[in-house]
C-alpha cells in the first residue's frame, strides 16, 4: 500500500497535449476518481502511473520511489482495463493465476489464493471456463480477480464498468468500493460517469482538456464547484446557468439578467466586487435549489413548458425569454404544463465570465 504522487505530469502525443502540468496526491488507502469527459487526459494519466505511457515531463512517485523509469512490471500496480483485456486462450483460473505464476508463487499457494479471490467475487463456477464463455459481468469480475489476487500496492481502474449493463453497474460500483475499503489498497479509478464518481470516491479529481479542474470530496465538488466546468459536469440534472451582471438597485446588489433579478447577499457582493471588477458574471443554480410558488404576482415569473416525471421527483422545464431552467420538484405539487410560477433562488454560485472561476 502506498501513496501516489504525481508532480507536474505533462504528456504529449505528437503535438497534442493530453495531460498538462498535472499535480495530484492520492493518499495511502484512498479511492480517488479521475472524472472528466472523453479526451480529458484521465486515462492517459492513469496509463502513465501504470507505466504504459512515458510522461513527457514531470514525475510520478509510488510510495517514496520515483517510478518514471520503471517498467510496468516493476511498479507493483494492478490495472483493470475498460476492455478487461482477459487472456482469451487461458481459462478464468489461469487468467487470475497468471500474475502469481509470473512471480513464481508455489503451485498450492496459487491454487489457494485464486480460489479465495474467486469465492470473494462469486465466480468460482467460472474458473474452468475460458473468458469467452463467461457473461460480461463475470468477465468483469475475472479481471477484478486478476488485479486483486496479487495484492498490489495500487489499484488502477480504467472505466471498468462502462461495458456492463446499467443494473449490474449500480451493483458492481458498490462492490468495488466495498472491496477497496476492505483491502485498504490505494485506488485510482477513471470514469466519465459523474454518478459513478460521486458514489465511489473518497476524493474526486475533475479533469478537462488535460488539466486538473478541482480536487475534493464528492460533496465539495458538488456544493462548491471551483469553476463553471466542474459545476456543469457534476450533477445528474445539470446546473442552470443564467448569464448577467451584478448591479446596484436601491442600495442592494442584485444579479440582473434579461430574465430575472436575483438579490445577492452582501458578503458575496463584496467578494464579487474584489474578484470580478466588471461585475459581468454568470449565476449558476442547481435544480433543487430553485423554489417556486404558484403566486401570480411574485417576482421572477416564468412559465412551465414541460414536465419530466421521474417517479420520486419531477423535473420542471421552465422557459423565460429564451432561457431554459430545470427545476426539481420533490414535493409532488400539482404543477401542470402552461402554469406560471414565481421563482426564488435559494443557494447559487457566481462564475466570472472571463475566467470561468467561481466567485467565493
Amino acid at each position: 500500500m502506498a501513496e501516489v504522487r504525481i508532480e507536474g505530469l505533462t504528456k504529449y502525443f505528437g503535438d497534442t497535449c493530453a495531460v498538462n502540468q498535472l499535480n495530484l496526491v492520492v493518499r495511502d488507502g484512498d479511492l480517488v476518481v479521475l472524472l472528466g469527459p472523453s479526451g480529458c487526459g484521465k486515462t492517459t494519466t492513469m496509463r502513465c502511473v501504470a507505466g504504459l505511457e512515458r510522461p513527457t515531463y514531470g514525475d510520478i512517485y509510488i510510495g517514496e520511489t520515483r517510478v518514471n523509469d520503471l517498467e510496468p512490471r516493476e511498479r507493483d500496480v494492478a490495472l483493470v482495463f475498460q476492455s478487461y483485456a482477459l487472456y482469451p486462450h487461458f481459462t478464468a483460473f489461469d487468467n487470475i493465476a497468471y500474475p502469481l505464476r509470473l512471480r513464481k508463487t508455489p503451485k498450492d499457494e496459487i491454487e489457494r489464493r485464486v480460489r479465495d479471490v474467486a469465492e470473494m467475487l462469486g465466480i468460482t463456477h467460472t474458473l474452468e471456463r475460458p473468458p469467452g464463455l463467461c457473461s460480461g459481468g463475470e468477465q468483469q469480475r475475472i479481471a477484478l480477480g486478476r488485479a486483486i489476487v496479487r495484492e498490489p500496492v495500487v489499484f488502477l481502474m480504467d472505466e471498468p464498468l462502462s461495458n456492463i449493463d446499467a443494473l449490474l453497474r449500480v451493483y458492481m460500483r458498490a462492490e468495488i468500493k466495498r472491496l477497496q475499503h476492505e483491502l485498504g489498497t490505494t485506488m485510482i479509478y477513471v470514469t466519465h460517469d459523474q454518478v459513478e464518481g460521486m458514489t465511489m470516491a473518497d476524493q474526486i479529481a475533475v479533469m478537462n482538456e488535460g488539466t486538473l479542474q478541482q480536487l475534493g470530496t464528492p460533496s465539495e465538488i458538488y456544493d462548491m464547484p471551483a469553476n463553471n466546468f466542474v459545476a456543469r459536469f457534476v450533477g445528474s440534472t445539470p446546473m442552470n446557468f443564467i448569464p448577467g451582471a451584478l448591479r446596484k438597485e436601491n442600495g442592494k446588489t442584485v444579479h440582473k439578467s434579461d430574465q430575472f433579478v436575483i438579490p445577492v447577499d452582501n458578503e458575496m457582493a463584496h467578494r464579487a466586487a474584489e474578484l470580478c471588477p466588471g461585475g459581468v458574471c454568470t449565476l449558476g443554480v442547481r435544480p433543487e435549489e430553485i423554489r417556486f410558488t404558484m403566486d401570480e404576482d411574485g417576482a421572477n415569473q416564468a412559465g412551465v413548458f414541460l414536465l419530466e416525471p421521474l417517479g420520486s421527483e419531477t423535473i420542471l422545464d421552465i422557459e423565460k425569454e429564451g432561457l431554459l431552467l430545470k427545476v426539481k420538484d420533490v414535493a409532488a405539487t400539482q404543477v401542470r404544463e402552461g402554469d406560471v410560477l414565481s421563482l426564488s433562488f435559494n443557494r447559487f454560485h457566481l462564475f466570472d465570465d472571463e475566467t470561468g472561476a467561481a466567485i467565493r
Partner: protein
Amino acid sequence: MTVQQTVSPLPGQGATSANSVTTQPPPPQGMWSELFSFRDNRLGVLLIVPSLLALILVQFYPIVYNFWLILTSEKGEWIGLANLSRLTRDTIFHGALIFSLKMGIVVVPMCLLVGLGLALLVHSDYAGRKAIWISILIIPLMVSEIVAGMMWKIMYHPTLGLVNVPLAAVGLEPIIWLVKADTAFIALCVVEIWRISPLAFLLLYAGLNQVPRDIYEAAAVDGATRWRAFWDMTLPYIRPMFAIATILVFVWSTRTIGTIAATTQGGPGRATWNLSWYIYGMSFQRLKPHYASAAVLVMLLMTYIAGTIFVRYLWVERRSR
C-alpha cells in the same frame, strides 16, 4: 488474502419466472437429415448442384482416375498393386522421396523462422509504412518458380554470381554450387527458403494482427517481460496460423519442380531429384504415367500424413495447467 466474504447473487439472477412457459421448437435432427430434407431445402440443394458438379469434375475425377492408372499397366491391363510394390524396390524413387523429405525438414523450419522474424519486424512499431514493407517482402511469392530458379542460377555462377563475391572478397576459392551434391542441396534449399518464406511471413503477420494489443499491456502490468509475453500471449494466439503456414510451406517445398528444372535439372547425377522431378521424368520422359501415378499417391499420402501431424500438434488449443 484476508477478506473472506462472499458476494450475494446478482439481482435478477437465479430466479426464473414461473409463468414463462413457452413452446420450444423441436430439437434438431442432425445436420445431414436437415440438409437433405429435400422438401424444406429444395432450392438450396439445387443451388449447390453446379458447384458440386465442378468439385466432382476437378477434385474427385482426377483422384479416381489416378487410382485407375495405378491399378493398370501402360497397356491398360489390370495389374493390381504391382506398380506400388515396384516402387518399394525402386532406389531412384527412394532417393527422390528422401530428397523431398530432407528438403522439407530444412526448408520448413527455416521458412517459419524467417517468416516469423519478418512478421515480428513489420508488426513492430519500428516499421514505418507497413504496406510498403509487405509489398516488397512478398515479391518472391509473385515470381514464378522457373524465373526464381534462373535468377538464382545466375547468382550461383562460379565467377559472375553474386553469391561468390563475398567469398572472393575474403580470399576464398569460389564454390561451384550446383555441381556437387551437398552444395547443390544447400543451394536449392536457399532458393526455396527465399521463395517460400514470404508465404509464412504473410500468414504469421496476419496472425499477429489478430492479437489484441491490450493483452500485451495487461501482461506487462501483470509482470511479464517482453519475452514471456511473446511466449504466453503471441505464440498461443498465432498457433493456428503456424499450423497453416507449416502445412503450406511443407507442400510448396516438397512439390517444387520449376526451381530444379531451372537450376540443376536433377543433377549432379540424380542427386537433386525430388518426387516432383521423378514423377515428371517418369511420366513425360520415360512415358510411364501409370507407374508415375503410384509415386503421386505416395506423395499425396506423405503430404496428408505430415499435414495431419502438424494440425494435431500445432493447432490444438492450449490448455495450460
